């Protein structure tokens, strides 16, 4: 006979406000098998947990039900407490009477009845719970970092510095990401390249970092501690081992007018190229779509001039398999592209601003490239249309951000600050020019951030206009800006020479595809979801996968770097042990019943089901049955629901337990 202890939590007033906890405790106390039933103000607090432990020992309890918040919140807490009191942790269950009851119902009577039933259900379930032994699996102490922007670089360096091997995979020909494109950074105005390039070189030289650029993730298999990752290394057409990075090939390449994506297509590059002079690795790549050799079969100049003979037109894409124990996802962001239809929106953005039609209406990143000393204009602010210096420049914030109509409701967080920075850079470079900024709200929380914004107004003389712009149109060589100043309550018209649109931050294109490969979840915008918004901000719900940087939501550089180091710390925590304990929620085969149809094997997405031969003592084969490898099984239970002879059981979710719950209702 089981002796079940039931503990009803008030959660301060969160539960007791709508649920009559005393009545629940009283009624559940009468259920068969329940030996002890009580209520307490905060079960998760130290005294609450002590109450639980004491009751287990004093009352000789065999099973425990804690009725409180969601098991997603505190199941671990209470199972630990139960274990400390000498019981197997899997003999403890939680009844969710907060998220699923007290918070979603207002009527006290209804909520109390429902709470009683929920607790009753868990009481019946826990009776059927079995002692489950902890399962341990080995940990491969290598990690994969996806994305070589500042987030990926920081995470990779931190992990590598701790002595573990890191595989860093970057889609572009060079690491560096968006930060390498920036001119100067807020709020200190230090040059982005100056602080970024040393880190990039560190990555290249680190003995523990294996760098794959121009490469993508093809397939991810396995589970925490034991992932197998297939990486597709795209053909660079240049042998990385032979290339010395002398750059002769690039000076001789006849294709010289290809818009360079790194320069937001305002600068030009050759067909064999490195995206920017400080690229890491300093090995060029041939852009096969624009290369004369690949298009017509005639040219090969680069190959002829290459001293070490590194150019290889025959090179093929390669698939490389790496075993890792942890994955850091740092794929970063993309900028809202005005001329494309954003996800979830019916319309293309901002026809009223004429972006793409009026050459001097540019986006913020293009302004960064104009302002960058290594950019296509050598750091001079010049109009793309006629190369003249703009004397009146208008910045418009919130392009694509806070725009429900464009399918994006969130604030991109960094645009207020980078626009303030732009006004300063402009003022430093064009002394007789005037900058205007149209904005809705200025959001500048952060150390020295608001001071920075105020400085752009008070010292750098930017004119901030609270209001938005409705239309831009070309008149002669001017751009007419029609906006409003809502503080004054009048329409405003400015004849501008250049207009800069502060475009929103969006997740990388293909972020959803990668998430599906990794088995991690993402929100409606394709930002990756953390396991807990406050308490587990760098972990994914999928164990062993961690998040760093803007792939999880808009972030500035300091935040990104902190999160990357945090993700690295999480990886180190995982790597600090040789064996990993995991929940023993795995499937087991009852060999006596198994007929060897292997329907389970077909549905198992993890390849955890193996074939096992059963032989008698003489070694004659009796039958072949299924066997579930507990190290590989993820515990989804699909095999059990599929098994026609009911010979597989998922520990923790047995038919017996579930039927008991249904019958209690």
């Amino acid at each position, binding site marked *: 006979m089981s002796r079940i202890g039931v503990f009803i939590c008030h959660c301060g007033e969160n539960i007791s406000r709508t649920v009559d906890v005393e009545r629940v405790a009283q009624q559940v106390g009468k259920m068969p098998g329940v030996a002890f039933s009580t209520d307490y103000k905060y079960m998760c607090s130290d005294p609450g947990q002590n109450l639980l432990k004491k009751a287990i020992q004093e009352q000789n309890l065999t099973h425990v039900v804690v009725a409180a918040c969601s098991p997603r919140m505190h199941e671990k807490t209470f199972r630990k407490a139960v274990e400390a009191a000498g019981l197997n942790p899997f003999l403890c269950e939680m009844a969710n009477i907060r998220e699923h009851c007290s918070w*979603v119902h207002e009527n006290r009577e209804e909520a109390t009845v429902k709470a009683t039933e929920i607790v009753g259900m868990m009481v019946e379930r826990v009776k059927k719970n079995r002692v489950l032994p902890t399962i341990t699996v080995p940990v491969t102490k290598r990690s994969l970092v996806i994305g070589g922007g500042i987030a990926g670089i920081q995470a990779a360096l931190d992990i590598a510095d701790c002595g573990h091997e890191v595989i860093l995979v970057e889609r572009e020909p060079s690491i560096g990401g968006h930060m390498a494109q920036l001119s100067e950074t807020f709020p200190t105005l230090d040059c982005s390249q100056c602080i970024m390039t040393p880190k990039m070189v560190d990555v290249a030289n680190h003995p523990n970092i294996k760098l794959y650029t121009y490469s993508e993730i093809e397939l991810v298999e396995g589970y925490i501690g034991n992932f197998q990752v297939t990486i597709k290394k795209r053909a660079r057409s240049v042998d990385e081992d032979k290339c010395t990075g002398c750059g002769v090939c690039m000076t001789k390449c006849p294709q010289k007018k290809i818009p360079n994506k790194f320069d937001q297509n305002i600068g030009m590059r050759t067909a064999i190229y490195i995206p920017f002079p400080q690229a890491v690795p300093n090995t060029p790549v041939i852009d096969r779509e624009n290369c004369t050799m690949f298009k017509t079969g005639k040219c090969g100049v680069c190959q002829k001039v290459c001293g070490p003979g590194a150019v290889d037109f025959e090179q093929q894409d390669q698939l490389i398999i790496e075993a890792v124990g942890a994955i850091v996802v740092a794929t970063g962001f993309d900028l809202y592209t005005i001329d494309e239809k954003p996800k979830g929106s019916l319309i293309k953005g901002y026809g009223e601003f004429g972006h793409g039609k009026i050459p001097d209406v540019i986006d913020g990143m293009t302004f960064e490239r104009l302002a960058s000393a290594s950019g296509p204009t050598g750091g001079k602010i010049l109009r793309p249309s006629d190369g003249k210096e703009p004397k009146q420049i208008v910045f418009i914030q919130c392009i694509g951000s806070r725009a429900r109509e464009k399918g994006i409701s969130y604030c991109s967080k960094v645009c207020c600050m980078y626009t303030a920075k732009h006004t300063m850079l402009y003022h430093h470079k064009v002394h007789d020019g005037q900058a205007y900024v149209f904005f809705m709200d200025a959001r500048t929380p952060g150390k020295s951030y608001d001071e920075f914004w105020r400085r752009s107004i008070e010292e750098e003389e930017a004119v901030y206009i609270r209001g938005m712009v409705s239309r831009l149109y070309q008149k002669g060589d001017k751009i007419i800006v029609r906006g409003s100043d809502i503080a004054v309550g009048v329409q405003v018209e400015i004849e501008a020479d250049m207009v800069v649109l502060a475009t929103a931050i969006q997740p990388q294109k293909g972020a959803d595809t990668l998430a599906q490969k990794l088995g991690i979840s993402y929100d409606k915008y394709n930002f990756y979801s953390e396991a807990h918004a406050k308490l587990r901000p760098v972990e994914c719900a999928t164990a062993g996968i961690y998040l760093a940087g803007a792939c999880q939501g808009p972030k500035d550089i300091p935040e990104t770097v902190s999160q990357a180091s945090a993700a690295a710390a999480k990886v180190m925590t995982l790597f600090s042990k040789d064996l990993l304990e995991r929940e023993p929620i795995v499937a087991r085969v009852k060999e006596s019943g198994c007929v060897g149809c292997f329907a389970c094997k077909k549905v198992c997405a*993890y390849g955890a089901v193996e074939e096992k031969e059963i032989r008698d003592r003489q070694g004659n084969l009796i039958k072949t049955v299924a066997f579930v490898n507990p190290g590989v099984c993820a515990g989804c239970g699909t095999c059990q629901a599929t098994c026609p002879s009911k010979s597989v059981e998922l520990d923790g979710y047995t*038919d017996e337990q579930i039927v008991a719950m*249904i019958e209690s209702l």
Partner: protein
Amino acid sequence: MHPEKQTHDFEPKIIAFVCTWCTYAGADLAGTSRMQYPANVRVLKFPCTGRIDPVFILKAFQQGADGVLVSGCHPGDCHYIAGNFHARRRFAAFRKLLEFVGVDLNRLQFSWVSAAEGGKWVEVVTDLTEKVRAMGPMTEFKELAMEEQWSGAINTPELKEAYSQI
């Protein structure tokens, strides 16, 4: 503020089978966002919709449920890669069986609710509750249970046959 309970002639019993990663989390989100929905639903948590055996649904109806909700991750978002696809295929076949047994299919709802869709959870639960309330109590299976004292195990030839096709 103590809102009065809205009285109805009939309070249906709804049993929801949900996966822990998406819909259970979505329901948690509805809670943390303090959304309100009818108190008729009882939630049973599974690791994945792939674990949900159609027998549980029969069992629920037999046990007096007036409506059953099965909900998991959106197609493509399964935490276990493809469990929800297997579930979807299985339940498509199961609906036919259920119809054969004489259950009005309007009482059984499948939906996808992600961890981010607290609002959708509220909508799905509210809609099903109202729909089933309008349909009235489910009697077919209760009578069946009375007649056969059916244990939930598969012991009739028809069921066995139908089940083998799933």
